[in-house]
């Protein structure tokens, strides 16, 4: 870690952080720092994440929040102190069901059985829009996939070094994380994380797309003569509503994939 630089915030899914049960320490005395090491090769003590605020409970000087990303939930605990009143102000502005972004420091709690829990002490909390949230999901999945590739490299070649990983295009951060993960989680099945990265990296339908999906489904349900609603009829109706051909085709494909509609005849759709 470079002391001169600001501690980087790790973009990480909750499910990866929840799998974490190892930390490493650097420095001594007042300068001692404890960093989480996840099985997915993320090393840090500050995180940045987005998700839906599921619960917010105030108990005296403490506020507990649960924030769900597409994979699981983060637990955020804020203790009101003199120096962090701006965070209190941030928290007062967000409500349950808001999509929010949180940046915070991690702290660790270990049970007698050895299970480790990671809590997040927020440094900033703010409501964000859907595009920002989708951007975070997409980038976080991408970063996880890169780190997992580095871990696979080490597992396929136990002689791999920092230099050989960086020679293959991984950053110093990624190489360090992968080496630590390989050391601390030698038998962890990373396929689980690979599946998570893959599943969330597929674009989530936007609120607008969800509404279009409902509207097209309702239209097909309502206008289903024998044989089904003709494609041209659907296009005519929704073009009048200002929807592009591409969006109509994409929505029909999604409805088909979801099993909501089927092609009863060529280019004619019925609901299931």
């Amino acid at each position, binding site marked *: 870690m470079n002391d001169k630089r600001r501690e980087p915030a790790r973009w990480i899914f909750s499910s990866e952080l929840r799998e974490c049960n190892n930390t490493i320490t650097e420095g001594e005395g007042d300068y001692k720092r404890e960093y989480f090491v996840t099985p997915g090769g993320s090393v840090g003590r500050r995180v940045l994440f987005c998700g839906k605020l599921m619960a917010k409970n105030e108990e005296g000087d403490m506020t507990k929040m649960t924030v769900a990303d597409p994979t699981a939930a983060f637990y955020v605990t804020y203790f009101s102190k003199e120096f962090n009143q701006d965070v209190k102000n941030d928290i007062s502005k967000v409500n349950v069901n808001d999509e929010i*972004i949180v940046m915070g420091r991690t702290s660790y709690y270990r049970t007698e059985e050895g299970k480790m829990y990671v809590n997040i002490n927020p440094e900033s909390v703010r409501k964000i829009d859907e595009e920002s949230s989708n951007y*975070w999901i*997409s*980038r976080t999945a991408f970063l996880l996939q890169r780190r997992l590739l580095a871990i696979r490299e080490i597992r396929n070649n136990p002689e791999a070094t920092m230099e050989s990983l960086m020679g293959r295009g991984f*950053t110093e951060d990624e190489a360090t994380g992968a080496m630590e993960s390989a050391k601390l989680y030698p038998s962890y099945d990373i396929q689980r994380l690979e599946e998570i990265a893959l599943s969330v990296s597929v674009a989530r339908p936007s609120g607008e797309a969800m509404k279009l999906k409902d509207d097209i489904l309702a239209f097909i349900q309502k206008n289903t003569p024998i044989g089904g609603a003709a494609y041209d009829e659907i296009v005519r109706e929704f073009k009048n509503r200002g929807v592009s051909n591409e969006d109509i085709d994409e929505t029909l494909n999604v409805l088909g994939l979801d099993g909501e509609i089927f092609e009863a005849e060529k280019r004619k759709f019925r609901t299931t």
Partner: protein
Amino acid sequence: MAEEKFVKLSDISGDAVDLNIKVKILSLSSKDMETSKGKTTYHYGLIGDDTGVISYTAWSLPSTVREKDVYEIRRCYSKTYKDKVRVYFDQKTEFKFLTEDMEVKRNYRYYSIKDLNIKDKFVTVEGLVKDERIKEYEKDGEKRKIFQYMLKDQTGTIGVSSFGLQLKPGKAVRLEGARLDEFNGYYRLNISDKTGVEYITLNIGDEPDYVYIKDIKNPVGGIKVNGFVISMGDKAGLITRCRECKKRIDDIRCPDHPDLLPEYDVFAYFTLDDGTDYIQVNAGYDAIKSISGIEESYLKNQSRPPLKREVKDKLENALLHNAIYVKGNVRENTQGLNLRATEIGHIDKNALNEIRKIQEEEFI
């Protein structure tokens, strides 16, 4: 007596001694150095043959050795430093002048603009020639011209200075052996009569590609990045400038133009994090105007001057913790690299699709 063996430059790959080579001296420069024995001069430059070009350092060099001449050089040695091979001449090295000329295979490394690195001074780059400016100067009583351009590829832009040779704006060009240097915190390319200039066909979009912050290593222009604004500088917000000299005023009046009323301006600096790394961004009013919604009429309204708190709130709402893209020029200053924004916008559906596509392509 066994026949002497001459090695080709492309076959020199690491540390070797007693090398015999047949090369052309492509460039010859000298540098003074203080040693414990006093002041001494050494020479350095490039040598080439029909297989490539290599840098050399001559701790000792006969005074008859000239640029552009061809020599048989015996008993030189090579060393590798930072993955690059260099040939060395010392007192044991012998030079034999040859009257023949030699065709040299130039092998300047090709770089995308964003990957240019000052450690490699002579490079090959390709890009679209833009924004011609012509300056005249006098040397030895003679009027000469410097042609200045911006060269743009899909990854960034860089300033180009050409001494004598005029390029064709709007055309794509390949520059082989252009010299890279750094001026005023920015990289710049220089073209001389030794630079190969070839017009080529290139497909360069109007928009640069997004780059990851981790990949920004050097001060080049025309960079586009995305990320979350994770913190904003305390001093970002409303500032005042002198109407005349445009200098920032920290007091009530400009010390040089105290009679003039100051004018209002907006300035932001913040940290942008894209998950791969972070970078400091500076942005003037032009860059933040559209994203912040701060109109010029608001700044110029003398009947209701702008409020510091109001401007700060507008900036924070527009930037802080939002996903944005930033276009700008990377500059090196005392605190490292920072990005001077020329345009800032929110990540919308189209930008998100573009970013996803770039990410997906990495795993194909």
